[in-house]
């Protein structure tokens, strides 16, 4: 089992979700995140004080997948999230020892 984590632009979330669903991914966990990187933030001004906001909003997805599906999933996310502009995000893959479905106690392949 692998854990695919992807950080993408928020307005791409819907497309990624649909692409993953088409690719047969039935579940994932999503968190709101902020990204720091080459993509510039912006400047806010409040009564003469300028603030550089270096963080930009991102969506962070986690999908636990069978080893066999890793490439499809990474590929699907990458192409659905791509705009070609700086800040499109990253996808990384981590080995997973085991997975449990809380409801049933099923493990590993049966759990995702």
């Amino acid at each position, binding site marked *: 089992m692998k854990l695919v984590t992807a950080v993408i632009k928020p307005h791409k979330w819907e497309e990624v979700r649909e692409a993953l669903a088409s690719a047969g991914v039935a579940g994932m966990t999503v968190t709101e995140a902020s990204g720091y990187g080459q993509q510039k933030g912006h400047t*806010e*001004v409040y009564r003469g004080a300028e*603030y550089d*906001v270096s*963080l930009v909003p991102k969506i962070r997805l986690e999908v636990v997948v069978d080893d066999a599906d890793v490439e499809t999933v990474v590929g699907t996310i990458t192409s659905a999230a791509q705009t070609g502009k700086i800040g499109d995000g990253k996808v990384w893959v981590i080995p997973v020892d085991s997975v449990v479905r809380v409801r049933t106690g099923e493990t590993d392949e049966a759990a995702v």
Partner: protein
Amino acid sequence: MDGYYAFMLVATALVLLMTVPALALFYGGMSRAKSVLNMLMMSYVAAAVVGLVYVLWGWSMSFSEDELLGGLFSNPFTHFGLKGVEAGDLIYVCFQMTFAIITAALISGAIADRVKLSAWVVFLPIWVTLCYFPLAHMVFGLGYLHSIFPAQDYAGGTVVHINAGVAGGVLALIIGKRLGFGREPMKPHNLPLTMIGAGLLWFGWYGFNVGSIVFVEGDGGELDTAQFLTETGVTFLNTTIATMAALLAWLAVEKLLHGKASSLGAASGIVAGLVAITPACGAVEPVGAIAIGAISGAVCSWAVGLKYKLGFDDSFDVVGVHLVGGIIGTVLIGLFSSASAPGGIDGLLYGGGLGSLGDQAGAAAFAIVWTGVLTALIAFAIKYTIGWRIDEEDEVEGIDFAEHGESAYDIATNTGSSHF
């Protein structure tokens, strides 16, 4: 009659409250979190720009005794800068000013999230000059329109709501949709804000409607006092119960069509009822007020869904609520108007025949055409000169950063960096 005068001081402040902050909040809550400040700003800036223009030439153009072009409007220079206006009349100037302000501010709901502040600031004085002041003169000042269609419009069904509704619709069409409209979710980001706005609008509307009393005798004495008591009692009651009926009717239709009665529906129903009773509040009996409110609530509840079918992005339904509600209120006077109400003549259902109905429909149609054509001209002129819209990327990132350099909320942990 200094009681009446005291009431006008309060009424004027109440109508200003309707724009700043009530309408701003009502719209702001419906916008997305990344554009709420821009939405608020459109109302606040409208108040400032239109208010100053009103003092310069707006009052004169609406109400000076020097009519031009057969009564389309009055001479803007007669009382330019309020010269020659008596101090004791200044509260009426302020009262009327607040009407011009809210009418202009109402339009902003149709073009949320996408318009440059500079374009809005250019649009405002031109629009009130070409569309608002003439209609105010023709209806409230008994100018040309009144001479061809002597319609009843107690507090501004044509001048305020139809006017703003048409302008909003025209701008939404010419300026175009928000990026992602109909595809991305654009749901209200803060409904309690919208509910505060609706509540304060209701409160302020008593200034709007009840303050619109005009004295017949004007003797400053006993007859005026009697009129003050009876007329304001009727307009207060009618405003109240029409709004209540509209709230319930909106919810009922929603429940029927979508299975749930929503808080946005309640807030919207309040506004739909207030809009429809605005022209009618002095002309109908309680049963008429309830009927007008209920019809407006029910029809507007259904009408706000149309924009998706027609494919235009009137963001917060200025057409669906103010144009539709304004027409309903204006035209139904022809049916429900009753001579027993202080400002009423008998309408169709009270044996008064079709005359009133014709006048009401005619006035509504005239206002629609007048403002429709002129707003389109202004909108195209701005489109092809300075342009209306912000950059696409700015729109995606959020207009609040792009135009105002701000973000509305920083409620969770603060992770920005700063330098001064």
